């Protein structure tokens, strides 16, 4: 009973539909960055290694390798800062969470492409 009312409220507040990307996809996330009174768009490219979209208030994690150093960003779904999410490449993976990529370097980081 208690959870129902809260879940109902969360559902009403949900600002996003089911995402168009999947785990393992390589995506371009266009972020709106505000510096002082200036705005610019920054693109963060990487592999989606986690996606919590089943529940309300979902989020997804994108992992990017910058000069061999792993960088991860967690984005809330429905964020107003995200201007656009573009899928560059579909990934063929067998797991729901690709945390094993964190332990890998170089060629081993690659995810097979879904054809």
């Amino acid at each position, binding site marked *: 009973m*208690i959870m129902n009312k*809260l879940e109902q*409220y*969360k559902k009403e*507040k949900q*600002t996003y539909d089911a995402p168009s990307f999947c785990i393992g996809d390589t995506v371009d996330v266009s972020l709106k960055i505000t510096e002082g009174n200036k705005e610019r768009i920054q693109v963060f490219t990487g592999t989606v290694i986690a996606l919590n979209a089943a529940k309300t*208030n979902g989020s997804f994690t994108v992992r990017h390798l910058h000069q061999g150093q792993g960088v991860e960003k967690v984005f*809330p779904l429905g964020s*107003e800062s995200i201007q656009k999410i573009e899928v560059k490449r579909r990934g063929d993976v067998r797991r729901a969470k690709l945390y094993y990529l964190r332990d890998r370097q170089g060629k081993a980081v690659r995810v097979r492409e879904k054809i």
Partner: protein
Amino acid sequence: MATGILGKKLGMTHLFVDGKLVPATVIEAGPCPILQVKTVEKDGYSAIQIGFGDKKKSRINKPEAGKAAKNGKAVKQVVREVRLDDGQEVDVEKDLDVNIFADVASVDVVGVSKGRGFSGVVKRWGFGGGRASHGGDWERKPGSIGMCADPGKTIKGKKMPGQYGNKRITMRNLQVLEIDVEKSLIVVKGGVPGPKGGHVFIRSTNKLG
């Protein structure tokens, strides 16, 4: 206008406010019937008694039933008194709802925090504890509690193990993010004391700035 209302914590979520993600607590508050009015002439001070939540019939005792029969209102689970300014008028027939906070920017929320029982210093006060290896021998102990012959006693207020939680806590100056009169919901920024389903009292804040 009366300044307080009773409610039930539904739980937490997050919302986008001006493009920023903020933590929020959803509280189901009211409608609270006014069960009794206390006046300066009769009681020496001015206040109203408000109730919230239905009470099971088998849990109602005779004094409660008698009072309910007298004022013609259902017996409520939680009853609380709210002080009024002397001479402040209230409409007894009209239930208090979240609309009383319609033009209020921030509120205080009073609740009973989650009880953690008799807790040690690491949980209760965030002490670091000792090392687990190399013969540490005091993993979660409080350590020294004072000096030597001078002062010869443990200073007052020393943080020690003891009962933690299950205590009345007031969160002050919580920003009101949203009010839904139809569903009796009030959404405040940040957390409020107590578990989900715990009863809370909400009043307009008296903290300045």
